[in-house]
C-alpha cells in the first residue's frame, strides 16, 4: 500500500492534480463551501480548450529542444472565424464548419513544417512568423466582425450531464486516445525517439521528416478544432479568442510533467495542469485580489509546482 502511494508520488504528473485540488479546496474554504460544484463544472468546461491544444503542443515539444508551436493562438483565431463563416448560423452546416476548421488548422500546421523544413528556420521563428501572417489573414478575412455560431452548435458545446460538461467527457476520451497514440503506436514511439536523439532515430530507420511533419500538422489541426469549439462555447468568433492559449498550451505541457528537453511526454498531467491553471484563477478571483497581484501569484505558484514536480523526479 505504501509502495503504491510512493510510486504514485514519484510520477511527475500527480503534482499537477495535487495542485489543482489544493487551489480548489482553498477557494471552497474561502467561500465557506458555497459554489464548490459550480467551480468544478466551470473549471472542466474551460480546461477542455487548454487540454485540446495542450495535446498538440505536447507532441511538438516532445520532438526535442527548440520544437514549439507558437502559431496556435493565431491558428485558433482564424479557425474560429472560418468555422463560424462556413456554418453561417445554420444548424445543418455544423459538420461542414467543423471540417473547415480542421482543414484550416491542418493547412497551418503543414505550412509551419514547410517553413521549418524547406527554409531550415528554427521552429520558434517559423511558427512565430507564421502566426503574424495568419493573424493578418484573419483580420482581413473576419473584418473584426463577431460571427455567431448556429444555436445547435452553441448548445452542444454547453451541454452538461449531472454537472459534467459533455465536451469534457469527449475530451477525456480523446486524451485517452492520445495517450495510447503516444506510447503504443509507431507514430508516438517515433516522436519520443526523435526527441531523445534525432540522429539515432534516423539510423534506427525512423522517417524523421515525415514524423515531424505529421506532428506539426497534428498540432495545427487540434488548434483548428479548438478554435471552432471556443467560438461555439463563447457564442462568437473573434481574432483574440486564442490569445491566452500561447502561454497556457506551453504551461500545461510543462506543469503536466512533459520534458522540455524532449523525448518524454505525459498525457494525464495535461488535465491536472489545465484544471490547476483554471482553478488558480478562480481561487484568486474569489479572494478578490487585484489583477496585478493575480498575475504575480500565478507566476509564483506555477514556479512552485514545477519545482515540486522536478524535485520529486530528482529524488527518484
Amino acid at each position, binding site marked *: 500500500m505504501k509502495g503504491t502511494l510512493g510510486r504514485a508520488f514519484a510520477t511527475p504528473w500527480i503534482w499537477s492534480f495535487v495542485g489543482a485540488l489544493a487551489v480548489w479546496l482553498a477557494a471552497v474554504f474561502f467561500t465557506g463551501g458555497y459554489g464548490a460544484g459550480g467551480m468544478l463544472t466551470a473549471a472542466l468546461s474551460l480546461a477542455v480548450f487548454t487540454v485540446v491544444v495542450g495535446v498538440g503542443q505536447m507532441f511538438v515539444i516532445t520532438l526535442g529542444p527548440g520544437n514549439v508551436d507558437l502559431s496556435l493562438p493565431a491558428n485558433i483565431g482564424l479557425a474560429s472565424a472560418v468555422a463560424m463563416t462556413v456554418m453561417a448560423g445554420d444548424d445543418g452546416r455544423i459538420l461542414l464548419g467543423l471540417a473547415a476548421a480542421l482543414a484550416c488548422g491542418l493547412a497551418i500546421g503543414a505550412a509551419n513544417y514547410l517553413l521549418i523544413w524547406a527554409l531550415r528556420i528554427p521552429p520558434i521563428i517559423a511558427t512565430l512568423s507564421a502566426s503574424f501572417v495568419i493573424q493578418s489573414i484573419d483580420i482581413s478575412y473576419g473584418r473584426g466582425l463577431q460571427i455567431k455560431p448556429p444555436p445547435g452548435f452553441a448548445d452542444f458545446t454547453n451541454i452538461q450531464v449531472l454537472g459534467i460538461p459533455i465536451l469534457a467527457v469527449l475530451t477525456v476520451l480523446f486524451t485517452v486516445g492520445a495517450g495510447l497514440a503516444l506510447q503504443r503506436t509507431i507514430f508516438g514511439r517515433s516522436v519520443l*525517439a526523435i526527441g531523445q536523439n534525432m*540522429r*539515432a532515430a534516423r*539510423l*534506427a*530507420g*525512423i522517417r524523421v521528416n515525415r514524423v515531424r511533419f505529421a506532428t506539426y500538422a497534428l498540432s495545427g489541426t487540434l488548434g483548428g478544432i479548438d478554435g471552432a469549439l471556443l467560438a461555439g462555447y463563447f457564442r462568437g468568433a473573434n481574432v483574440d479568442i486564442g490569445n491566452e492559449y500561447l502561454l497556457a498550451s506551453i504551461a500545461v505541457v510543462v506543469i503536466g510533467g512533459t520534458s522540455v528537453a524532449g523525448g518524454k511526454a505525459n498525457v494525464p498531467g495535461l488535465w491536472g495542469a489545465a484544471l490547476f491553471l483554471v482553478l488558480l484563477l478562480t481561487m484568486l478571483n474569489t479572494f478578490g485580489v487585484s489583477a496585478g497581484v493575480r498575475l504575480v501569484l500565478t507566476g509564483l505558484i506555477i514556479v512552485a509546482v514545477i519545482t515540486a514536480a522536478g524535485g520529486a523526479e530528482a529524488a527518484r
Partner: protein
Amino acid sequence: MTVTSPKLVKLDGIEKHFGAVRALGGVDLAVGQGECLGLVGHNGAGKSTLMHVLAGTASADRGSLTILGEAPAGYSPGIAKKLGVRCVFQELSLCPNLTVAENTRVFHPSLTGFNWRAKAGRLILEKLDAIFPGHGISASDLVQDLAIGRRQMVEVARAFTATDEPVRLIILDEPTSSLDAHTARQLLGFMRRAVADGISFIFISHLLGEVLEHCDRIVVMRDGRTVADADATTFDRDRLVAAMGDVEVHARETRANKGRARGQSPLRVRARPRRQSGIGELVAHEGEIIGLAGLAGHGQTELLLAIFSAAMRADARAEVTASVALVAGDRQADGVFPLWSIAENIGVRSLPSLRQGLLISPRREDALANLWRDKIRIRTPDVHHNILSLSGGNQQKALFARALGSDARIVLMDDPMRGVDVGTKLEVYDLIREEADAGRTFLWYTTETDELKQCDHVYVFRNGAIVADLTSDEVTEQKVIQSSFAEAS
C-alpha cells in the same frame, strides 16, 4: 618493477551498488609508481565503475582510497586532477561544440592571457604529435566534426598534457577500441615510454594481446570482484580467459563462406565511395559478410551511411535491393535512446512487427527483448530497466539485438564491437555467420584484424576511396596495413 616500488594509489574494500545491482563487492587494488597495470574482465564486471571511483566521478558506498599514502577528504574529480590522476573514459568527455584547443583550455584553467587559444593549441598538438605522429588533427577543428577515432586521439592526448598540475596516473579505459591497428600501436608504444619516465597507468582493454604485451601486472575482475592479480609474465591468453570465467577458451577457426562462389546469390548492395576515382566499387551479395578495412576515419563510416540513406530513398551513389539496419559504433551519438528501457531500445527498429492490430503489444516487445537478452547475454535482471543501467559493452549488445532482431536483410555495422568482451565477441561472430548462412548480408566496418578474418571479402579504404580488394584468404594484418598506407594504384 620490484615489490618495494612505492604504492601510488591504493583502493581497499571498495563497494558500490546501483539500486539493487551490486557493481563492486569489495575490491582491493594498488598501483605502484611507474607501473602499468592491465585490467581485464567481461562487460559489466565492474571495471569502468571502479575507475570512476578512482577518478572521483563516482563515490564508493564503502571502502577507502589512498593516494601517495594519504586519504584525501571529500574526494572529487577536482582533487583527483590535482593529485595527478587523469582518465580517458569509454564515454568520451570532450565538448562537441568546442574546438580541440578550447577543450584543452577547459581542462587547464591556468592557460590564461590574450593568446590562450594559441597556447592551448600548442600544448595539445605537441602531445598529439608525440603520441600519434601524422594524426591530421588541427587545434581549430571542432570536436563534433572529428570522427570517433580522432576524438579518441584528442581525448588521450589531452590526458597527457601538463601545465601546473602533475601527471602521475593515467587511466585508459579501452582507448584502443576506437583506434585502428596503426594508431593503437602508436599509443601503446608511447605508453611504454611514459612508463619508463615514471608515469603509472591503468590500462583496460578487451584485446588480451595488447594487455599481455604491454602491461607489467594484470588484474582480472569478475562480477564486481578481483579474481586474479599477478605479473603479466605469469599469464597467457588461455589463463586470462579462464580467469575471466569463459567456458570457451580458444578462438575458433574462421569459417568463411567457402562453399559458395562469389556472385552466385542475388546482388544486395553496389556502392561507390564519393571520392573514388577509377573503377573501385563495393559489391555485396545475399549471404555475404563484407569487411570494410583501413585506418579509422578513411571513408568507411561515410559509405555505410550513404548506403543506409540509399535504402531509405533512391541515391545515385548506391544501389540497395533490400531493407537495411545499422549497428552504431558511436553509441552515444548514433545509437542509444537514453530515456528508454532496454526493451524499448531493442524494439525500436521492429515496431511494425510488434503491433497487434493498431497498437504496439508490450507482450511482443518484451518477448523480443528477452529472446535477445538470452541469446547474446545482455547482463540485466530485467529488460524494463533503463538502457543506461547497462555497462558500455552491454549497451552495444542491445544495439546488436536491435539490428539482428529486425526484419532487415542487410545489416550495416559501424565498428560495432567497441567495448564488447572477448567471450561475447566470439558468440557474436558465430551469430553473424549463422545469420549470413540464412541469407542475411553484412557490411562490417572494423578496425580489428581478427574481425576482418571473419569476412568473406574485404575492401580496404584510404582517403575516402577503396584501394584494395581482398578475398578472405588474403587478409592479414600486414596486408591491410600495407594497403592502408600504399599510394592508391
